């Protein structure tokens, strides 16, 4: 568990530093690299994607770090860069790595891998704050790439635990065709197998009609031949058609997955465990509600801040070692200390299962046991992960 000896040693060292007034100036530059990707059109434009998605979370995290740093002679700055669609992400990454080894990546998984493999990135500490791709935590993992956003597998495991608990064991699926949807479906299948849930039927959503006009006519027919089932899972990670499924199914059944009852890293409906304070701090600064990617960026920046506070060092190798150790813990407003998985660099965290107006449950749910840490019932546990880059 927690290393008491190390903690007290640390406190002593820090205490001496403070008492002596010999505050070492630690300067932390943290980079945020956003790589814009083409966004396919969606049926409804009710919920535009915020321009500063993710970035706003990093800024709040930086403020939190800076306030703490004031008392310890540590300063933090955020270097922001944005690569437009079709721009040279690799050149931008190189330029950023020339300024700091600590970089948050808001980019597709393959771009993140290309950046992590750069000569300039060896010895750097990168954070994936945008991609849920399970492979990045498994066969495609990189030692210099940690993950503050939960993997798709963590989210689908959380959802599966709730389905289990509610005994909604007979399920059907409607999936979109975007790569994100397919990745979600893949994670979902793994989770359903893991928790012994049955997928009775599945359909692909390939309509190109505008559902705002005729969802009420289309969806009942589309879902009629599912027959009976307990819950309908929607895989629509871009928010295209899912919103038109609810209350339009042939059978009166709950809708879960990307729409309806969803498993998320963060949601505006979270208020327990001090979450209300983070929400209000974020909303005051960003002028909008905090979303999962904002939270992931916040958590990555706070991870660095917490490690610098405790180590009083800005050496990437020392910080990486400390962050992956059992001594590290991050208070993430989700009711439990958050730590990193030593086998793939994934931030362990509770996953909220929410509908748009309230939290329904928080996974891991009671009764889902693990021999070491119940949080590891979510996502790739040590024996499952094919990651070999981490010792």
């Amino acid at each position, binding site marked *: 568990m927690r290393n008491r000896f190390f*903690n007290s040693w640390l*406190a002593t060292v820090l*205490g001496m530093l403070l008492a002596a007034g010999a505050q070492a100036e630690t300067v932390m530059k943290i980079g945020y690299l956003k790589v814009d990707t083409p966004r396919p059109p969606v049926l409804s434009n009710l919920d535009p994607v915020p321009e500063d998605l993710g970035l706003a979370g990093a800024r709040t995290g930086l*403020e*939190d770090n800076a306030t703490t740093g004031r*008392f310890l002679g540590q300063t933090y700055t955020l270097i922001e860069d944005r690569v437009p669609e079709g721009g040279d992400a690799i050149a931008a990454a190189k330029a950023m790595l020339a300024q700091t080894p600590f970089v948050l990546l808001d980019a597709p998984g393959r771009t993140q891998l290309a950046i992590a493999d750069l000569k300039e990135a060896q010895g750097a500490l990168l954070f994936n704050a945008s991609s849920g791709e399970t492979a990045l935590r498994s066969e495609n993992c990189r030692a210099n790439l940690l993950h503050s956003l939960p993997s798709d597998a963590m989210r689908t495991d959380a959802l599966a635990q709730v389905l289990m608990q509610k005994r909604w064991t007979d399920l059907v699926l409607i999936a979109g065709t975007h790569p994100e949807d397919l990745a979600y479906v893949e994670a979902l299948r793994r989770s359903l197998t893991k928790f012994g849930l049955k997928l009775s039927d599945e359909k692909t959503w390939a309509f190109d009609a505008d559902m705002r006009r005729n969802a009420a006519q289309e969806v009942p027919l589309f879902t009629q031949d599912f027959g009976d089932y307990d819950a309908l899972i929607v895989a629509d990670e871009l928010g295209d058609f899912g919103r038109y499924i609810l209350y339009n199914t042939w059978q009166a059944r709950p809708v879960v997955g990307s729409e309806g009852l969803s498993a998320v890293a963060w949601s505006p409906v979270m208020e327990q465990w001090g979450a209300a*304070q983070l929400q209000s*701090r974020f909303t005051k600064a960003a002028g909008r509600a905090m979303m999962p990617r904002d939270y992931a960026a916040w958590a990555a920046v706070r991870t660095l801040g*917490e490690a610098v506070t405790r180590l009083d060092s800005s050496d990437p190798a020392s910080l990486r070692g400390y962050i992956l150790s059992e001594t590290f813990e991050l*208070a993430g407003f989700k009711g439990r200390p958050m730590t990193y998985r030593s086998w793939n660099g994934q931030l362990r965290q509770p996953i909220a299962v929410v509908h748009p107006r309230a939290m329904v449950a928080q996974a891991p749910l009671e009764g889902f046991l693990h021999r070491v840490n119940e949080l590891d019932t979510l996502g790739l546990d040590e024996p499952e992960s094919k990651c070999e880059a981490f010792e």
Partner: protein
Amino acid sequence: MNKLTAALLCGASLTGPALADEIWVTNEKDDTVSVIDTDTLEVVRSYPTGERPRGIIFSKDYSRVYICASDSDAVQVMDPETGEILHDLPSGEDPEQFVLHPDDRHLYIANEDDAITTVVDTQTRKVVAQIDVGVEPEGMAVSPDGKIAITTSETTNMAHWIDTESHTLFANTLVDSRPRHAEFAKDGTELWVSSEIGGTITVFDVTTQQELHKITFDVKGVHPDRVQPVGFEFTEGDRLAFVALGPSNHVAVVNAQTYEVEDYILVGRRVWHMAFNADRSLLFTTNGVSGDVTVIDVAKREARKSIKVGRFPWGAAFRPTP
């Protein structure tokens, strides 16, 4: 309180106004305070407050009760006899916890949303000072001699030591994650700070601000992550500390001399803060999730009763018979 007095008080309460001692509890999500009679262990009154009441404290002569109405951005001053709100004090934004200086005049208030500690003069009703502290200040304490005030900050993970003369920080000491509550002990020679996510209490030597000891907890059958120390109080002579352990639903009994944990007492869900009765034979804990107050028999170290109060009870304060 001896049995005869208790019997007399019970008898008296049948005919006249309540004369027993009381425990006042703020209900965070009901915007009320519940008043519990310490003899009958029943809720005898409740009064409306501002929005999201949390910290609660009485003036020295118990003629005033101060209540942090967090979402009203005010400290409310209530007449405990009538429940009437007399006036609001300026408090800075989102006051959460506070402490009354031994001068009975100055309130030190943690402004959770603003990373500030506000000092308010309750007589002139003016802000005397605002001190920059860490992110999400929460725990507040003042030394018995009134010279030192403490603010703990939940996200910065520090105890900030404030010189009450100059209203400046003279030390900042790191503790484990999410410090929630601070108390001076043993005539002001020790400072205890609980860390909710860290799962520990750090004991500091006040003279040197150095860590003396770290107390850890281990509740049988509860995952260590859910053992989250929050509020705590000391028995007579600071012999024992009773420590609320949040979602583990237990209160720990710590020997304050050896720092050993001697017992764990099962209480309501998500136990938060607490207050003793007059002779400290009974301890009243607020249980946020179950919406009740557990009464602990201090000598027997067991729960005696649970009393339903409002939604999300948060703070607790003792008021003797008027």
